[in-house]
């Protein structure tokens, strides 16, 4: 046998190459697409492991927005604009952190920093929820106008969810801040403006935009210290 084997063949390396190919499960189309888009298999895997982007979570989001579509079509009230920002804010609060990501402790010792992991997932969760909201708005009718009405509040509540979850180190606290914050705004608007005016009143959008910028800045500052610990 050894007479037929070139002396420079490293069987251990050959075995590892072959075993690595055989044992490696096929990568899903979504992850492959993300890896191509981001130019990084690592970031693609970071995003597909996001707790608030698993199939069950996405299905729940689709169901909630589906109900919003039906109610909006029947009543004419802006239910999609009410629900879509909350879904994004809660999803971002549950994107990363202790008790949310099973591998959180290990992730904190990795070369790709936890801050990078967090921000990648935040962007991904926001993009997915914005896409779902856009589809829901498209089903109801005037997608562009409707989308403009919820996109800014979505950015504000996403920043609020991230800031509250980062400050407290708790995803449920972040989610509660999103739900409570939005409920207070909507109820306050209902008293002062009537109905669901606060959800899509164009006069409030500059305020929501300013809040989004402030909260996003706070979240970024917190992620640098509270999330990484360094």
């Amino acid at each position, binding site marked *: 046998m050894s007479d037929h084997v070139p002396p420079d063949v490293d069987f*251990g*390396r050959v*075995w*590892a*190459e072959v*075993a*690595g*190919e055989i*044992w*490696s*499960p096929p990568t899903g189309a979504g992850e492959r697409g993300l890896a191509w888009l981001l130019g990084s*298999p*690592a970031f693609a*895997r*970071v995003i597909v*492991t996001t707790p608030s982007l698993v199939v069950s979570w996405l299905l729940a989001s689709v169901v909630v927005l589906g109900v919003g579509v039906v109610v909006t079509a029947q009543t004419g009230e802006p239910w999609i604009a009410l629900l879509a920002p909350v879904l994004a804010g809660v999803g971002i609060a549950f994107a990363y952190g202790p008790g949310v*990501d*099973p*591998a*959180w*402790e*290990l*992730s*904190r*010792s*990795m*070369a*790709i*920093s936890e801050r990078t992991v967090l921000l990648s997932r935040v962007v991904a969760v926001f993009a997915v929820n914005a896409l779902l909201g856009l589809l829901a708005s498209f089903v109801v009718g005037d997608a562009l106008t409707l989308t403009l009405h919820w996109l800014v509040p979505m950015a504000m509540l996403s920043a609020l969810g991230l800031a509250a979850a980062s400050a407290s180190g708790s995803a449920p606290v972040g989610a509660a801040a999103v739900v409570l914050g939005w409920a207070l705004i909507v109820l306050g608007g209902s008293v002062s403006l009537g109905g669901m005016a606060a959800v899509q009143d164009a006069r409030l959008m500059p305020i929501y935009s300013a809040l989004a910028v402030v909260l996003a800045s706070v979240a970024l500052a917190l992620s640098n210290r509270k999330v990484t*610990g*360094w």
Partner: protein
Amino acid sequence: MVMNATLSVDARGLTQRLGRTTILNGVDLQISGGVFGLLGPNGAGKTTLLRTFATVLSPASGDLRLLGYDPRRGAERTAIRRRLGYLPQHLGYYPGFTVFEFVEYFALLKEMPSAEIRPAVARAIERVGLADRAKAKLKTLSGGMLRRVGIAQAIVNDPDLLLLDEPTAGLDPEQRVLFRALLREIGQTGTVIISTHLIEDVAAACNRVALLDGGRIVFRGTPDDLSSFAEGGVGDSALERGYTRVLTGARG
């Protein structure tokens, strides 16, 4: 203070606090090469010390160099993490991942070169004796097997500094013997630090040992040095008696 860049770990006056409680109280420890055992009772601070060395926690005060780098600096912290392996006390995992996918995920997070990842993952899985379960979902594995998966992700990048917190918990006697051999093998080229309650692991695998109590190092030396304190101690082996004797002495 002059830190030694040739050491794998150089800790001077390291302090960690949780609220008002001091977990580590001025720890001085210099470690270079071989297998180093961290012993101590529950609550002594072993896990906190390992988490600090793993760059999971930043020190409240004191100086720390890991592999010659200062972990307080972002770029140097990344350089440390690329050459680090860490097994936490409680390994979190994604139940739907296969063994291969899980180890591969951490190889990706350690920024290993793409072309090296699959062979490195295969080698790590084989080294911990899980070749026949490489394609199994994590949710189907026993506790001992999951522990070995955790060890595989820790060694996948052939780390220069390997930190293992209670690595043999859940392993059966045969696996523990194999694991100690693996530790000795890794310790020949890098530095391994294990935190353990199991004196026999220390006796079999470690060439240096430190005993931590109340957040302070109360002993450092070789296992034989610790055994030399056996007289008057309690335990089944000289090392155990030395351990209990040193602890009793440290507590006055």
